[in-house]
């Protein structure tokens, strides 16, 4: 009988205590903010969308290697000796044309592993977090500053350079072969001295 009354009283008492707590919270100001009109204030180390400052990027592919989900895709083309590609902010001379630099934000897991290995600190995380899209493809960001024709142009220049080098090499090889043949032709006449001079050339 005793715990019967005790149960009833304890039930009543704890309910009243609980109600006192909720009543007190009616007079405590709310902690929520009205999102679209009041934007939350982002700390400066915030990790949201990546940004790549292309004129500092030297195309070293460190970030693409560090990324656990392989969402960074970089293609570079060597520059022709004559061209001037400008220098990065800390004075390093750039040697590669970066023709494709895509980051697929649908795959990116925002882990910031790509930011640390970058030698010129050109890839870093901004605090933009409202970038949702309707199609998944439009989350594929292309950061290259060259126009599409320029990219193809750069590739073509490089191919021509390669082709030219190829041609010179073949020509040089042919020339060397002819000289050797010529050397053999007049070798039976004077065996010793000529060989040394030829080698020297």
């Amino acid at each position, binding site marked *: 009988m005793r715990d019967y009354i005790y149960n009833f009283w304890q039930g009543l008492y704890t309910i009243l205590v609980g109600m*006192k707590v909720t009543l007190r919270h009616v007079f405590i100001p709310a902690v929520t903010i009205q999102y679209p009109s009041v934007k939350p204030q982002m700390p400066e180390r915030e990790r949201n969308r990546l940004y790549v400052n292309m004129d500092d990027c030297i195309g070293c592919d460190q970030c693409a290697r560090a990324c*656990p989900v392989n969402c960074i895709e970089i293609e570079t083309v060597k520059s022709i000796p004559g061209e001037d590609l400008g220098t990065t902010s800390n004075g390093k001379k750039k040697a590669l044309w970066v023709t494709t630099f895509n980051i697929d934000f649908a795959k990116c897991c925002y882990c910031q592993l790509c930011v640390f290995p970058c030698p010129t600190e050109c890839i870093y995380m901004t605090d933009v977090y409202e970038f949702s899209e309707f199609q998944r493809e439009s989350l594929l960001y292309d950061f290259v500053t060259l126009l599409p024709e320029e990219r193809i142009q750069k590739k073509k220049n490089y191919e021509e350079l390669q082709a030219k080098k190829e041609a010179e090499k073949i020509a040089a090889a042919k020339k060397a072969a002819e000289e050797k043949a010529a050397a053999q032709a007049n070798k039976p006449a004077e065996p010793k001295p000529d060989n040394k001079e030829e080698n020297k050339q």
Partner: protein
Amino acid sequence: MALKTEEMVLNMGPQHPSTHGVLRLELQLDGEIIKDVVPHIGYLHRCFEKHCEAMTYPQVIPYTDRMDYLASMYNEFGYAVAMERLLKIEVPERVEYIRVIMGELQRIASHLVAIGTYGADIGAFTPFLFCFRDRERILHLFEITCGARLLYNYIWIGGLSHDLHPDFIRLTKEFIKDFRPNVIELNELLSYNRIFIERTANVGVLPLETAINYGVSGPNLRASGMKWDLRKDDPYSVYHKFDYDIPVGKGDKGKVGDCWDRYYVRVLEMEESLKIIEQAIEQIPEGDIASAIPKRIKPPEGQIYTRVENPRGELGYFIISDGSLNPARVKVRAPSFVTMQVFPELCKGFMVADVVAILGSVDIVLGEIDR
């Protein structure tokens, strides 16, 4: 003529409001009483272990966050401790202290989720919002330090990715000062409420022998009366420098090891974590946080099994390295996976409403079960 009652099979989940994630429970019911529970898991299986075999050692850390997404700081902590023992790296004092502070803050945040959702399962919706309001302050502390709120990639092998934010210490002190009265208020509102006790006392009792035999660990084991905490029994990092005690279920509202004990052990544990954080903040030394991070990690051939006290129990990492840049095998012993094994044992003979109460009290996370 005996009245023929055939058993009703009730499917709870995978889209059920109170299964804490994607889990399907097949209940064999006799009226309201439960005959047997068959859990079906695997809906959230993202083949974490297959991923690890394709990643280099530092790249695995963002994946460990996604396993127990409510306590990802502690997952990284476990992985880092395992790798440092394998590579035999000595980590500077300051890093150890920051890891302990971050780990204990994450324990409080994870317990707040467990307590909040448990209140909501039983029907009291207000404590859920109070818990999440306090948890928001911890997430803000994490956000100013490493930039992310839930999946941090903050604890690296051999060090940390960022140093503490300048006003981190001040904000943590403020948080501790504000949080203590909130816990008392939460107790008044939920823990001692007669209806809550009615719903949780003597429900889902886990005897100590079955707990040990099944390998249950963490708050669920401590609630069954065993003083077993890896921070003291299998020490790692600098936990031996702080004094704090381990709350154990005493069964003061019903049998030892019932739902109320599991719930109340978590409330007491939050208080202990506060004590650890306070002492850690006082004694934190100066120093560089990235000095011991090796440039390329190529561990010698071998294997190691290490375990840490995750908020949900014993989180074990079994790493086999074959001398190359990628791990040959990373097996994770997830505490919720083992707790889920013992769950059918707890539910036999109780009612449908109790399944929800018991599931809430064992506090499982499906990301960890399915990996």
